[in-house]
């Protein structure tokens, strides 16, 4: 069966881009997080939509599972082949197809990397930028949008799935469909005013289709960029501070962070506020607005803005920031994973305290923080735990801490984002049963043979 599958896949994408070898099966069986490995039978790298379609048709014929994968950096094991089958590594499909500078959108292929789009825009459209996550630059836009990611323009534009303007998707049954304006007109300007079919593929962890093209919103790129760091000591005041800062509507990105290292940061709650402007005058105006919004706290001497030396400021302005990646080297063991829970801002103090308690209880190295989404409409609160992958006990400690964090996040009204398979179960247990039943009905219509990333979002 596997030999037949491989031979037929080779006919579709060429022998160079198919492998059932032990090396690929091993490496693609896991990601950098704590989830246990699960091997695919074969890894395939298509070059275009038609090849994806043929692979999907073959998988249906042979009833073999398919797992779409971008850079595989999700950390929560969503690109593992839980039931074996094919991993579809999308990164050969990495072209930037179109940039519309007037209507400010870009159309890219399903395996295009964040870093490559950033670089392309810098060269060809320096007046434009897209919202980058702090994921490593090889992470794909499709993988990130499919999981409702967020990034450096998320205060301005919401989560990255809110910035999606349309998609081309190969359905689990093999048809190629388009969502958004590109399904009617030639342009990819937006998802309204049509029935919003894009939602069929967002947040489903690759269980409903394979995104082969997508459109995303671009935003003005500023000549002058700055970051302020607001420091507080009382977590209970954080929701109001965030609310006041976002009410100015000038920040592009707002990321609270709380870490025990470096020493000067321990015990304090920081909020990085990134903003930009076309002129220096405008930048000063925006800075004044931000500072004025939290004046009460400064006057009361309970919080203040941190003076930032130039190198530190430069580091904070780096996009993507490599700091979180470097957290993986904290225990000299190449591992970290985080629970990112999407929740309402008012849960900030609870989340912060839960993070500290869990880190202490499980004796794990931690980094806590959040990214504000929209004008304080929600946040992605992250609880990151580093581990040494060469030390099974340390991995288990981190894994237990993550599980406890998922439980705590759900209990306080948050929802684990890009949830690991066990966390999906926890979410389903708490979900309105009718909602889960509808998810099941949609999946059985889209994917009658149950081939798309099976094992996820199942009871």
């Amino acid at each position, binding site marked *: 069966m596997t030999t037949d599958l491989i031979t037929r896949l080779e006919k579709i994408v060429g022998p160079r881009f198919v492998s059932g070898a032990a090396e690929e099966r091993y490496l693609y069986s896991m990601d950098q997080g704590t989830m246990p490995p699960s091997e695919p039978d074969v890894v395939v790298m298509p070059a275009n939509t038609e090849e994806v379609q043929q692979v999907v048709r073959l998988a249906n014929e042979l009833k073999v599972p398919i797992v779409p994968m971008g850079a595989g950096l999700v950390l929560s094991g969503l690109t593992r082949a839980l039931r074996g089958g094919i991993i579809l590594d999308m990164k050969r499909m990495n072209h930037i197809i179109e940039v519309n500078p007037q209507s400010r959108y870009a159309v890219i292929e399903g395996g295009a990397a964040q870093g490559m789009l950033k670089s392309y825009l810098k060269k060809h459209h320096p007046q434009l930028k897209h919202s980058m996550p702090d994921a490593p*630059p090889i992470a794909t836009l499709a993988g990130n949008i499919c999981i409702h990611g967020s990034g450096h323009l998320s205060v301005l534009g919401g989560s990255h799935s809110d910035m999606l303007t349309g998609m081309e998707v190969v359905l689990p049954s093999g048809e190629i469909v388009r969502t958004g304006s590109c399904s009617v007109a030639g342009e990819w300007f937006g998802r309204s005013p049509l029935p919003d079919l894009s939602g069929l593929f967002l947040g489903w962890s690759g269980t409903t289709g394979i995104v082969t093209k997508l459109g995303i919103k671009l935003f003005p790129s500023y000549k002058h960029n700055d970051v302020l760091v607001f420091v507080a000591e009382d977590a209970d005041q954080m929701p109001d501070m965030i609310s006041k800062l976002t009410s100015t509507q000038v920040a592009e990105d707002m990321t609270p962070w709380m870490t025990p290292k470096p020493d000067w940061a321990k015990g304090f709650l920081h909020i990085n506020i990134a903003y930009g402007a076309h002129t220096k005058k405008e930048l000063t105006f925006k800075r004044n607005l931000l500072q004025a919004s939290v004046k009460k706290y400064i006057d009361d001497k309970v919080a203040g803005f941190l003076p930032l030396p130039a190198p530190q400021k430069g580091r904070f302005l780096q996009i993507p920031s490599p700091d979180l990646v470097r957290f993986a080297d904290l225990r000299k063991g190449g591992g970290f994973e985080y629970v990112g829970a999407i929740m309402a801002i008012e849960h900030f103090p609870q989340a912060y305290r839960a993070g500290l308690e869990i880190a202490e209880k499980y004796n794990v190295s931690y980094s806590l923080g959040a990214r504000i989404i929209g004008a304080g409409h929600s946040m992605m609160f992250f609880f990151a735990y580093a581990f040494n992958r060469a030390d099974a006990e340390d991995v288990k400690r981190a894994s237990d801490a993550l599980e406890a964090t998922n439980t705590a996040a759900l209990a306080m009204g948050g929802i684990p984002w890009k949830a690991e398979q066990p966390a999906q179960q926890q979410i389903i247990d708490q979900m309105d049963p009718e909602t889960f039943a509808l998810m099941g009905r949609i999946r059985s219509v889209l994917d009658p043979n149950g081939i798309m990333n099976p094992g996820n979002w199942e009871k």
Partner: protein
Amino acid sequence: MEHEDILHRCFRCGYCKLPGNYVDINCPAYLSFRFETYSPGGRMWLLRAWLDEKIPASKRFAEIMFSCATCGNCVEHCAFPEFRDRLLLAFTAGKEALLDAGQAPPAVRDYLTKVQLHGNPYGKSVKKSSQWMDGLEAEPFSDQEYLFFADDVGTYDPRGQEVARSVATLLKQAGISFGVITEALNSDGNDVKAIGETPLFEELAAKNIKILNQFNVKKIITLSPHSFNALKNDYPALGAQYQVFHYTQVLAFAMGNINFSSDNEDVTVAYHDPCYLGRHNTDYESARMMLRSVPGITLVEMDRNRKNALCCGGGGGNFFTDILSGGDGSSARVRVREAVEAGAQILAAACPMCAVMLEDAVKAENLDSKIQVQEVSEIVNQRL
């Protein structure tokens, strides 16, 4: 295995796959094969798995390990400071372990056997090592200031010989005092070491050092950046005490001695940084200085230049073993397309291997009418 202690520390984040400006994939092995396994992080994890007996030492595993072009992009752009300095050392140690286990690919074994038997990978007799000088009237080394070291490619490869002749001609034009040793010099051993065969490297180096010392050599000009790297950085640990220069470094400061013809056509040139001159030895300027001093030349930069340069794919023995192989995604082919995109009419190389690799790529891409590959001294010599 040496450096085994760092393998598990790689996070497999993939910063190392890209250049610092993220333009496109910049690891030649990953660019060519595209499986995660061929990326720097992939090879770190696979090496760990092999040592833990989670995967066998297969033909494919050997191909993965030996496809590394030792270009140093991963070392330059890995997200972890300090750790990254040991990346290439770990890859080389991995290859060494595979060689010890008798698992090297046949092409690697052939390469090493030839070097072992003949002192060079062409399997040529050292008696033929003066052929490259035909028509050059190069002086035998006696008491000149420099020895000119032409390495394997410059000595035995037909195109490499042209490059060696051209460089030697320009050195003469610039009034540099140099001589050559025609007998018995072996391969510099740089790529033998990069392939993981350290004992053979040491043997080659020791033989070369003996001869160089017999001739009382003090200062050396190398043709190849690979020789430059070995002689400058690795030979001292084996007792060598020479001042070593790449030819562009000597010529960059001697360009004032050169008279150019007054009727040169204007031409746009992009310079391809060789890994062993650039990333490995941080000289990004000497060749550019040379080119800037030539009337009529407009220097343009490719998106990937200096620390971000894309390797031609010839390092780590791949020039001889061809494990990286051709195909649309081979880095040499991607590189010449990039040069055309940058608007260059000439792609300048400062390494005989790069020159050969990139010329083959221009042919494979059918770009002959748009761009020509020339070695830096050839560009200068044509304008005298």
